[in-house]
């Protein structure tokens, strides 16, 4: 029986990796992967607690998150493709159309 | 679901079908728009006859009632309530009867934006029918204000030279009066807990001093619409500028909204106040009769002459209603119909000559009988009906009104003085003066202007417009019994209520 703290530790490690990835990488696809990493870190925490407290709701939330992540991937990849078409690049530092 | 085949719903909203169809036509399809509008209005008229067939004239109560809860929040009790009784059935029939004739009169007169014209016209018909049928104060108010919008556009787009001025004046003037009525309606609805007219009447119990204020608030809206002297200033402008069909509907129906409002709301809801106010209203009515007749005589524009004659005629109606006896009120209702027919016909007639000569100046004519004999004879019949020649419709109305007013003039009667009926009867002489003056100037004598020599007599379409009106002129004049029978029980009911109010009002 692995205690729940181990899972949480793994989850924190994964989450920080994702967060740092989002903040420091320039490639949009990498950023995207980092976001997935953060989502899955959260999923891991949910499942761990669901098992710990024998509550089904935590597992249900995971399904929601996976569905949202799938939708996000679809939309996000489409956006990246569209940006690539116009800018010939997916470097996020070159994209500043919203500059005030 | 059963309300869908209710005659009142069908009659009121059937013109919307026409509006819908016309909406899908192109602006260039003028004839299609005309035909759709004509057929729609004819079917509406047919539906109203079907409604008449189901009407039980011996029943004084509301019939064919539609009563659906509508807005019921925060103690407000507003329902979608339609119903018909002897007070309104003739006016509903008059509306559906005049509408096709008015549409027919636009056949060649309106060439511009025909599609829009017809849509506005049919919308106007819906509004007017709604006013006559609504039995809920809130619903009534909505229809009442709704009639303003299409009429505003009819005057403002297809009118004469100063059409915008006339349209705005018409709109603002009538709107101003309605505001007070709205306040009174809200007061009644909130304090009495219901907006429906039959419930309000059954409840009664409005204190006498408060009745008078509410009466005045309603009267402000209606008196402007009638229009009663001295609130008539919008009328000549609106009539002179409106297109022929607009004038016909304005004179024929819209003015009746005012007198009908007095009849149904002021007399029905506030009987004690009505008894108190009767002599004052009658004073204004008599002034209106004489003033309108005198001012008509001095007009140089035929349309204005007819417009001012409306002030005089509606003075008769008001005098009859406020005689508060069955002769006066029944005569008043019949006179509303008569005025719709005669004055409507006069406006149609003026429109016909205007289409040919593009002027309405009385001095521009003369000797028209020689050039346009059929037109002249039909005009003569209508003119005689308007001045109340016995055997034609105007007489029956005027006579019964004056008879009622004389009876009310007896000591202890509603008016309390014979002067009202006596002076009003002078209006009969003055009517002959201005009508015969107009006829002599335009139709008799030699043809003096060259432009008039080659005028074409009226065509079959125009004859077809006037013939139904003339048939009614004779029918009502010679055998008005069916018309009186329709309204008698409802009026008797009203008179009984007024009489008990008069007794209750005695100190």
């Amino acid at each position, binding site marked *: 029986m692995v205690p729940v703290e181990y899972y949480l530790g793994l989850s924190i490690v994964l989450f920080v990796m994702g967060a740092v990835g989002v*903040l420091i990488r320039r490639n949009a696809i990498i950023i995207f992967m980092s976001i997935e990493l953060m989502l899955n870190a959260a999923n891991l925490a949910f499942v761990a607690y669901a098992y710990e407290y024998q509550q089904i709701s935590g597992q249900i939330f995971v399904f929601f998150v996976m569905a949202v992540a799938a939708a996000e991937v679809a939309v996000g990849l489409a956006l990246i493709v569209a940006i690539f078409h116009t800018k010939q690049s997916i470097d996020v530092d070159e994209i500043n159309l919203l500059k*005030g | 679901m059963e309300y869908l085949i209710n005659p009142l719903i069908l009659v009121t909203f059937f013109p919307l079908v026409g509006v819908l169809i016309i909406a899908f036509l192109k602006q260039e399809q003028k004839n299609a728009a005309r035909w759709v509008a004509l057929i729609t209005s004819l079917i509406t008229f047919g539906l109203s006859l079907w409604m008449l067939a189901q009407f039980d004239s011996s029943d004084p109560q509301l019939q064919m009632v539609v009563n659906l809860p509508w807005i019921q929040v925060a103690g407000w009790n507003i329902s979608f309530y339609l119903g018909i009784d002897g007070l309104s059935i003739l006016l509903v029939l008059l509306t559906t009867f005049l509408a096709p004739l008015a549409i027919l009169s636009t056949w060649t007169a309106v060439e511009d934006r025909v599609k829009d014209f017809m849509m506005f016209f049919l919308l106007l018909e819906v509004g007017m029918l709604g006013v006559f049928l609504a039995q809920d104060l809130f619903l009534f108010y909505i229809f009442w204000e709704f009639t303003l919008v299409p009429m505003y556009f009819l005057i403002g787009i297809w009118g004469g030279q100063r059409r915008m001025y006339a349209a705005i004046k018409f709109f603002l003037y009538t709107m101003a009066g309605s505001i007070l009525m709205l306040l009174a309606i809200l007061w009644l609805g909130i304090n009495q807990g219901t907006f429906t007219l039959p419930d309000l009447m059954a409840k009664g119990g409005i204190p006498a001093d408060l009745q008078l204020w509410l009466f005045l608030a309603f009267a402000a809206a209606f008196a402007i619409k009638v229009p009663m002297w001295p609130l008539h200033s919008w009328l000549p402008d609106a009539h002179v500028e409106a297109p022929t069909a607009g004038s016909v509907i304005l004179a024929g129906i819209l003015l009746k909204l005012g007198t009908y409002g007095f009849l149904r709301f002021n007399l029905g809801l506030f009987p004690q106040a009505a008894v108190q106010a009767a002599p004052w209203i009658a004073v204004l009515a008599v002034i209106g009769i004489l*003033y309108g007749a005198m001012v008509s005589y001095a007009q140089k524009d035929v349309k204005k002459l007819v417009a001012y004659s409306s002030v005089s005629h509606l003075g008769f109606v008001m005098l009859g209603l406020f005689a508060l006896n069955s002769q006066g009120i029944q005569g008043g209702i019949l006179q509303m119909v008569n005025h719709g027919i005669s004055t409507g016909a006069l406006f149609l007639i003026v429109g016909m000559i205007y289409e040919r000569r593009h002027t309405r100046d009385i001095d521009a004519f003369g000797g028209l009988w020689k050039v346009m004999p059929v037109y002249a004879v039909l005009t003569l019949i209508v003119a005689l009906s308007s001045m109340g020649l*016995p*055997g034609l419709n105007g*007489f029956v109305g005027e006579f019964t009104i004056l*008879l009622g007013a004389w009876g009310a003039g007896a000591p202890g009667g509603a008016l309390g003085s014979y002067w009202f009926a006596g002076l009003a009867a002078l209006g009969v002489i003055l009517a*002959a003066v201005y009508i015969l003056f107009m006829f002599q100037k335009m139709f008799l*004598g*030699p043809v003096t202007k060259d432009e008039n020599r080659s005028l074409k007599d009226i065509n079959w379409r125009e004859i077809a417009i006037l013939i139904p009106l003339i048939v009614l002129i004779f029918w009502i004049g010679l055998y008005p019994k069916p018309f009186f029978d329709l309204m008698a029980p409802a009026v008797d009911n009203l008179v009984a209520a007024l009489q008990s109010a008069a007794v209750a009002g005695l100190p």
Partner: protein
Amino acid sequence: MFLLEEAVSQGPQFFWLAPWIVAIPVIGLLFNILFGARLPEKVVGWVASLASGLAFVVAVLLAVSLASNHEGQVVTLAEWIHIGDFTVRWAFQVDTLSVTMMLLVSGVGTLIHIYSIGYMHEDVRHNGDPKRFRRFFVYLNLFIAAMMILVSSDNYLMLFVGWEGVGLCSYLLIGFWYEKGKDGIGNSLAAKKAMIANRVGDFGVLLALFIMFWGFGSLDFHTVFEKAPEVAGAAPWVIGAITLAFLLGVTGKSAQIPLYVWLPDAMAGPTPVSALIHAATMVTAGVYLVTRSAALYDLAPDVQTIVALVGAVTALFAATIAVGQFDIKKVLAYSTVSQLGFMVAAVGMGAYTAGMFHLIAHAFFKGLLFLASGSVILGVERGHHHVEHDAHLKKTIKGHGHDFDPQDMRNMGGMRHTMKVTFWVYLIGSLALAGIFPFAGFWSKDEILLDAYLHNQTVFILLLLAAFLTAFYMTRQVLLVFFGKPRSAAAEHAKESPPVMTVPLIILAILSVFGGVLNLPVFHTFGHWLEHTLEGLEAQEFSLLVAATATLASLLAILLGWWLYSRRYNQQQELPVAKRPDDPLRQILGPVFTALNNKWWVDELYQLIIIRPYAWLSNFLAEQVDWRFWHDWFHEKVIANGYTGLSYFLADKFDMRVIDGAANGLATVTQQFAGGLRRLQTGYVRNYALSIFLGLVLIMAYLFFR
């Protein structure tokens, strides 16, 4: 359809025919309206005459039924108006009084219809619009129908329908040649004047009806008459007011002072119209009304006196004017007003038999005189036409202008040679009018004078003077028209009228001679006939004194007339034109004659005191009060401009400075603030992500340390 009341049957019963007396003329006029345009003139004329003739037949049948069943009957057709306790029916009262009027109207009417076939044939051509032939007969039939409604109704309201209906026909027929007359509008103005004067009278009738209904609870004859004594006891003013108000109607319809002014102008209508409507029938409606309301008038003696005086004064007043006229029809018109005065005076004194008798006799001889004058006018016109189209004659005659007036008696003279039949019938008519024994006028006028002599001396003297003048002006007219030498080429070449015109004249002449047998003294046939309808008629015994006085007065007048207009006038004709007076009386009376000739300036007086002030008042109300004050000043200046001014004040002064200032200030502050903030907006995703992350950390920290 007809609700026949149960009849006590004896002898022939034709009462159910009563509605046809109105229906037949209506059918006639509808036929002519619908088909007349395509039919020849003759057919149109005869159809109309036939309709009138059939109405006469119906009237005769009704009279036959009455002979055996004196009470008569009420035939109800339908309910007309019914409101509460107010009920009026379309119902026909058949009794001796109404049938007398029916016989008169349809009888004289038929003769005049036939005469018109000939007269209008020429008249429409002379006036240049042959299409109006049909219209004339439609109007005539309409008139017969309206008159029948008037005389046959069983209630006052239906009577009023006929009353105004005949007024309408009168209007239409006076204005028949609406583009002719003075300045082209003379005829139409005359028509308007007639209608409006009648309307003033109708105002009185209306008031009477109102008072009657609220006093008696009904407008039916029999109910009103039954209740009359009771009401007279309870509220005497009611009956006085009703009868006085009726008098106003009578002065309008029967052309009495002060409303008589329309009748002389009404002569603008074609001559058969003057004969039928403005002499024989319509204008007697007032007399009929008073006779019909005998039960009411008998209860109001004061009003009766007023009625009698109005009639008598009118009789004399109009007779004086008739003396000074040159237009052949104007003389007859004023004579009609005067004779109507006789009738009104008679019925005012309660002498209903005498009044009705004179009404009938007058219908005969005045109808005859008018028709004969029409024949004279056409004769002169034919002569005029003849001269116009004969180039040779035209050259030889000097001063023959186009503005020739065929009705001016000064252009006539000597026509007894050219128009023999017309002359003789005219003479008969004049003698009857002058009241010479044994013509119809003698008997009827004598009865009126007798009643006046017995009841009211003032009236008697007024009427006697009027009778004197009547004989005088008729002598003047006959002498001017038919005797002496022709004073114009047209008169010289006048031609007699065709038989279709002369035959009705001869029939009327016969009636004028023998009409007196209707009510000879001693027998009182007519009086007994009317007794079935009117209660309490008293028949006066013949008085030789009165008859002799009246005859003497007439003979004196004729003698005077002969001396003036035969001897003196013919002498004066020899004088050169400049010195020749147009009338011998002008020499003698001077300015008085001018006054007579100008009708005592009554028209001008009315113009001054009624018509002009009314026109001014209505103009003032319309232009100044309603338009400039109320419409332009009050609504435009006060309300509209006042509102505009207020809104400009609010817009410029208040809104721009205060509200706008506040709003603008707020906007400036916001803008500057935003300018600072926009620097944060780098557009780099990572900056945003970092700030989200920092924000998250801050929130977490807050949650953790709170």
